[in-house]
């Protein structure tokens, strides 16, 4: 396992940029068709911002930079939601240069709480929470069973993948997709998809 948080964020950003069209197409089907465009714009700004940082910064500083940059460059609903998530996680990373299972789980927990507060949403409403909460639950369960960090992340990603599939089966009650009512069934949620892409990219990065 390798890796600075700096590299992790660069790789995650690139994955989002690579999936710009997919995310935009998913959003066009049930929302206003800008999720990929906005997220790609945000992570391009993140990339530029991280390059201007000294590479020896602690995890908290890097995540705070990511959060603030997303908040000031993405717009829409995803900017405040992802931005808040990274800012909350950053608080637990101040002064740290390494992550263990416990801190990683706590970061995910406070990020999820931030998203819930900002978006006034709960699980089951066809949002990114339908990916992030099951992922967190699976991570904590695996950690409790004394699995390694990679095994915990593998469990989290599998639950996240199922979470994306689950969003196809439910009606949206948050965001613009909520106006579709029953017509939103059958479509996977773009925000849930971008959350899954981030987790999966993190796993693949740590694996290799």
């Amino acid at each position: 396992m390798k890796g600075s948080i700096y590299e992790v964020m660069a790789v995650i950003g690139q994955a989002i940029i690579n999936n710009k069209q997919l995310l935009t197409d998913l959003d066009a089907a049930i929302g206003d068709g800008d999720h990929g465009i906005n997220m790609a714009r945000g992570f391009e700004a993140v990339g530029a911002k991280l390059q201007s940082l000294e590479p020896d910064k602690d995890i908290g500083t890097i995540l705070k930079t990511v959060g603030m940059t997303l908040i000031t460059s993405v717009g829409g609903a995803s900017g405040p939601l992802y931005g808040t998530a990274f800012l909350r996680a950053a608080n637990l990373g101040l002064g740290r240069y390494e992550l263990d299972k416990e801190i990683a789980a706590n970061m995910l927990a406070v990020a999820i709480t931030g998203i819930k507060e900002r978006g006034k949403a709960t699980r089951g409403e066809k949002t990114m929470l339908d990916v992030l909460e099951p992922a967190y639950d699976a991570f904590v369960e695996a950690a409790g069973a004394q699995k390694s960090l990679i095994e915990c992340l593998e469990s989290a990603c599998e639950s996240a993948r199922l979470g994306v599939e689950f969003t196809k089966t439910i009606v949206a009650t948050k965001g613009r997709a909520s106006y579709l009512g029953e017509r939103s069934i059958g479509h996977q949620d773009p925000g849930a998809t971008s959350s899954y892409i981030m987790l999966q990219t993190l796993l693949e990065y740590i694996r290799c």
Partner: protein
Amino acid sequence: MKKVINVAEHVVEEMLQGMALAHPQYLRRVEGFDVLVRVNSPVGGKVGVVSGGGSGHEPAHAGFVGRGMLDGAIAGAVFTSPTPDQVYEAIKAVDSGGGVLLIIKNYSGDVMNFEMAIEMASAEGITVDKVIVDDDVAVENSTWTIGRRGIAGTVFVHKITGAKAETGAVLPEVKRVAEKVIANVRSMGMALDSCTVPAAGKPSFILEENEIEIGMGIHGEPGTHRESISTADEITTHLVNKILADMPLSSGEEVAVMVNGLGATTLMELYVVNRKVADLLGNKGVKITKTYVGNYMTSLEMAGFSVSVLKLDSELKELLFAQADTPALVQF
């Protein structure tokens, strides 16, 4: 995609430059931000009134910046809410000490970004409050959605709230009036054809040759249903009946009407629509005190229109008729 643009990513920036150059007597750019404010901002002795949202709705929102309407407007990316730092800059630029009222259209992104800006401004000691416009009767207001959308009726909120602020009223009073407008305005739209977001490069949705969408939102969000195109009178009757079902009007009541073009629909057609709106309301004995026909809250080059009806009392009527001097609306 066929558009008069240079680079898709520069559309908003170049539009803002063009607006500031076109209307120097009204508008000033807040340097480094996608914010246009009244040229003499902050205007002393009054509450600042700020609105904004995604671009692509021109003349909204910056077109309504001027005396008697808005103090500032923030332009997000096309159809995308502006970010909190941009809204915060607008708040700072227009606050003269009396506080600022934000007029937000009811979309998840807009509400979240504007609320974060309120938190930032409050931390700096600026008093900021907000109202959320949700005039679109096409979508159900239930626990299963995020509530109704804000569409063209927002322009009435800009007009009347701005007029109230111009009188020197304090922030709670300005907010009270804004909420009164929101409680008494209803809108519904329809689309004949789609629009193309420059950065997307292809139409947001597809309507067949003879197909229209009833209840279409101003970002191409789905409406209530699709149907075959019928006559102007039939379509207008459907929209007005939906509005009246939600806000019953009785004989003798006074209203203001807005027939708003979404971008690609001719004034000729909008006047045809207005004739039917007047007919329908007149038959109910409702008195139309003031009518606006034109492009006020567009949706890029979408073809279609919306109808807004605002129920007036003496207070709202007086403020609606008050003077306004802005790039897109002048009333004397």
